């Protein structure tokens, strides 16, 4: 079974702090994604990566950056956390070669106070 893990299930940070969310997948998937889930808005894509050291902006990249130094690890960085970044953050991975199904981690519930 594919396993996608995220470093924290719950996180509380203060406004202005730098926040790192880590995601690791164990299936040698090429592509990795970061989403945020908010009530009534579904899952919105923040950033994605098709290969090591590559990154592409999604629909809502403002206030976020990412890092992918190793194939299995994809990090989401909030440079200066704000209260409107309080959300559920979900990481996903998918094989390359035109595969369709993304596999999700359990999510990180981030609260910025």
């Amino acid at each position: 079974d594919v396993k996608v893990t995220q470093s924290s299930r719950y996180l509380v940070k203060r406004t202005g702090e730098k926040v790192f969310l880590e995601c690791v997948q164990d299936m040698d998937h090429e592509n990795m994604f970061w989403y945020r889930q908010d009530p009534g808005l579904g899952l919105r894509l923040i950033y994605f990566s098709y290969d090591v050291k590559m990154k592409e902006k999604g629909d809502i990249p403002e206030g976020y950056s990412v890092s992918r130094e190793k194939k299995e690890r994809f990090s989401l960085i909030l440079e200066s956390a704000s209260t409107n970044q309080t959300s559920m953050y979900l990481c996903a991975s998918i094989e390359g070669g035109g595969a369709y199904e993304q596999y999700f981690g359990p999510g990180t519930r981030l609260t910025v106070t």
Partner: protein
Amino acid sequence: DQQVKQNSPSLSVQEGRISILNCDYTNSMFDYFLWYKKYPAEGPTFLISISSIKDKNEDGRFTVFLNKSAKHLSLHIVPSQPGDSAVYFCAASVTVSGSARQLTFGSGTQLTVLP
């Protein structure tokens, strides 16, 4: 501008009856559609999918129907069970770079199955 829409935020059905969840899309480039199920405090899990060249796909109690001309798909659950209570997300897939694909999600429908 939402390219994938789930217009019903919630749905309640009695146990044993049929649940029908609907999804509409606007982008003609979408060529594959998926349904995900999400329990609270867990990540979404894949449920069922359908290619744009088909109009129906069935897997046990779950059937997805695609009406390409109407840009509409639906998920039918028969019979519904209390354990089916979850948020259901519709997602549409498109190729964005080479063979890499990207999903666009709807806003989700909270299904509650009443015992």
